[in-house]
């Protein structure tokens, strides 16, 4: 038995194991267009990112669509946001994008400019109704060659608070729209009051939106008109350094956030406040199980500056390679305009962009709160930045990863700023 292995067997095994290292690609598939025939059985693939709460809403919306079009079946899948784009990227390279997709403004240029998305403009007035969508919102899906996505709605950056959690601490809620000092004091009071079981908030310098907010409060933008970074490496390092005092003993430690990822600190009831896009309200309610979540304006260093903007985020788009473009257009139209879908989603995909859907949404409770919030900040709403540069998705993620690493103490703000600029040079240069 001790002779079981000869040198040659070993060489062979080593060679086999080595080939196992090879990367494999993925195959594509051709297709031909087919007319929308009411008799024909059509199956469309649909995919979105989100949590269980959103999935349940989509299930209902798809049920309603299938009742209206009995010959169309929708196969839906969902994942979290980062892996969503990793999957789409692979499919894009292999020519196998799903027929219809929940889309993001961030990636519009990358996909639309490369001919991967269906030009929805061809179906305007002929499958897709656009009358109820405000011109400026509809235009966000427009690139040089056509309109490749339609926004479901819009949102704005905001501060969320959990009144139930806050009540136990005895700290007064943050009023919103005041100075950064006041917000910092609020966060510190909460953390002090609980002795560190519940924190006042999450590091307010971690995400690229945090930097954008501060830049806009100084009357500046994140990117120049040429699509280059509109801040210096030193400014970025300073931005991250500003969060130091809070990271030390006020905001929730990054090590705890790593453990609960992909749920956020606020979603996991570890913090009483968090800054994010206003359409996160539904997701937060689902994640935290809180009875009520309130929403107020972010702090500002310059109350006269129009630092906030209506952000188009979620969109619906179809693949250029879909075999059933008419059916895909019909589904997009349904998701965008149907009052029924409005009723199902409320404001969780943003305040509906389509008037008919907004009416159907009959916003109440938390959704009403989002709409009231957007109304309340109308004075601070300025012009939205230009469509994100190609590769913005990767830049945004790199920023966040570095922000987290600073929180863990594995890099200094200076090192992180250098890494960010090195990375951005590659991404924006290509």
């Amino acid at each position, binding site marked *: *038995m*001790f*002779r*079981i*292995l*000869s*040198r*040659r*067997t*070993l*060489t062979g*095994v*080593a060679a086999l*194991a*080595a*080939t*196992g*290292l*090879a*990367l*494999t*690609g993925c195959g594509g598939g051709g297709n031909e267009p087919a007319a929308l025939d009411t008799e024909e059985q059509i199956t469309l693939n649909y995919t979105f990112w989100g949590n269980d709460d959103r999935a349940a809403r989509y299930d209902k919306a798809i049920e309603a669509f299938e009742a209206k079009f009995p010959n169309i079946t929708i196969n839906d899948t969902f994942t979290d946001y*980062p*892996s969503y*784009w*990793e999957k789409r*990227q*692979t499919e*894009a*390279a292999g020519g196998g994008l799903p027929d219809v997709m929940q889309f993001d403004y961030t990636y519009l240029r*990358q*996909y639309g400019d*490369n001919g*991967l998305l269906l030009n929805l403009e061809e179906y305007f007035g002929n499958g897709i109704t656009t009358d109820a969508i405000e011109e400026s919102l509809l235009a966000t899906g427009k690139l040089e060659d056509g309109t490749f996505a339609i926004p479901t709605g819009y949102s704005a950056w905001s501060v969320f608070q959990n009144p139930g959690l806050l009540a136990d601490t005895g700290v007064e809620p943050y009023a919103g729209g005041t100075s950064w000092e006041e917000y910092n004091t609020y966060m510190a009071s909460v953390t002090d009051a609980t002795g560190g079981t519940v924190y006042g908030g999450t590091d307010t310098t971690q995400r690229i939106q945090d930097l954008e907010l501060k830049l806009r409060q100084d009357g500046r933008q994140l990117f120049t008109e040429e699509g280059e970074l509109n801040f210096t490496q030193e400014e970025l390092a300073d931005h991250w350094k500003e969060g130091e005092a809070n990271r030390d003993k006020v905001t929730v*430690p*990054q*090590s*705890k*956030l*790593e*453990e609960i*990822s*992909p749920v956020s600190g606020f979603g996991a009831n570890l913090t009483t406040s968090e800054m994010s896009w206003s359409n996160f309200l539904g997701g937060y309610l689902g994640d935290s199980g809180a009875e009520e979540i309130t929403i107020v304006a972010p702090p500002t260093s310059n109350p006269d500056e129009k630092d906030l903007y209506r952000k188009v985020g979620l969109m619906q788009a179809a693949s250029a390679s879909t075999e059933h473009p008419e059916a895909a257009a019909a589904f997009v139209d349904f998701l965008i305009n149907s009052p029924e879908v409005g009723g199902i989603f409320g404001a969780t995909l943003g305040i509906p962009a389509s008037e008919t859907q907004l009416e159907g949404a009959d916003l109440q409770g938390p959704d009403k709160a989002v709409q009231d919030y957007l109304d309340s900040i109308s004075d601070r709403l300025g012009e939205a930045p230009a469509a994100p540069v190609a*590769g913005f998705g*990767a830049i945004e*993620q790199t920023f966040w*990863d570095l922000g*987290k*690493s600073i929180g*863990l*103490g*594995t*890099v200094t703000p200076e090192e992180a700023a250098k*890494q960010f600029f090195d990375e951005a040079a*590659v*991404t924006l240069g*290509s």
Partner: protein
Amino acid sequence: MTTDSAHAPSTQRSAESGAHPAGSRRAGASRPRRPRNRDSLAGYVFLSPWLLGFIGLTLGPMLASLYLAFTDYNLFTAPEWTGLENLGRMAEDEKFWGSVRITLIYVLVGTPIKLAAALAVAMLLNYKAKGTGFFRSAFYAPSLIGASVSIAIVWRAMFSTDGPVDGTLNLFGINLGGWIGNPSLIMPMMILLAVWQFGAPMVIFLAGLKGVPAELYEAASVDGARAWRKFLSVTVPMLSPVIFFNLLLEMINAFQVFASAYIIGSGTGGPGGATNFYTVYLYTRAFANNQMGYASAMAWVLLLAVGVLALILFRTSRSWVHYAGDSK
């Protein structure tokens, strides 16, 4: 781990071929080959499904990635030839070197510990006692499921703050907190997860141990050797081909750690890049940053690096691996 279990039967087959008279291997190597032999044609016909798969799914993509390694390719537009630029970038990429460092620590620390655990347990199970069959299966089981996503999720939960591990350590007055969010504790946890899957090398060690002739131990006992001396002078030399085999396979496997690192680090190499293993970083470059060219170059650097390490192992093996039947 499936590669390991797939190899287990192949050792059995070699055992059968080992029944041929000694020296036939050398004779076989010098026999002139006749490619037009009808037997070999039939052989290739039977091999054709595998050959097609190998060419279409392995060789083709490998060649494609070799080409992409010298290009800038973002998945959306056609690859652009950039020559050695990717390698130059790699040399200056701090995150790349960080991932190399992490992966080497994992391979160089994790693999020996795993093999030591496998050998120790194999020696225990080699004693004839009641229930060894049960224990053999019980110890083998983790290596079947260890690389799965669900196990990574369970380990994530176990090593979180106030999770079972933290709770148990607290009982003994050790307050480390959660391991998952701690950049300095995540590597020990990853190594533990790897060591826990020692079942596959253990089974191969066990087969090797059963093949060590009892008379060698008896002779050693007569000469007055104690357990430790017998281990060093009988078990280790007789087992050296098996140790070499396991070392090689486990090393190559360890370089390829991905699923557990991806899940435990939330896919971003977190916390703070501490789980940014080579393969995770390669994946991030390819699918999160759309830098397929750079990722392909990384894949080839890994392949060459593992190849060189395997070659070094083969070279050094001449001085410490003892093949029965060799003249030394």
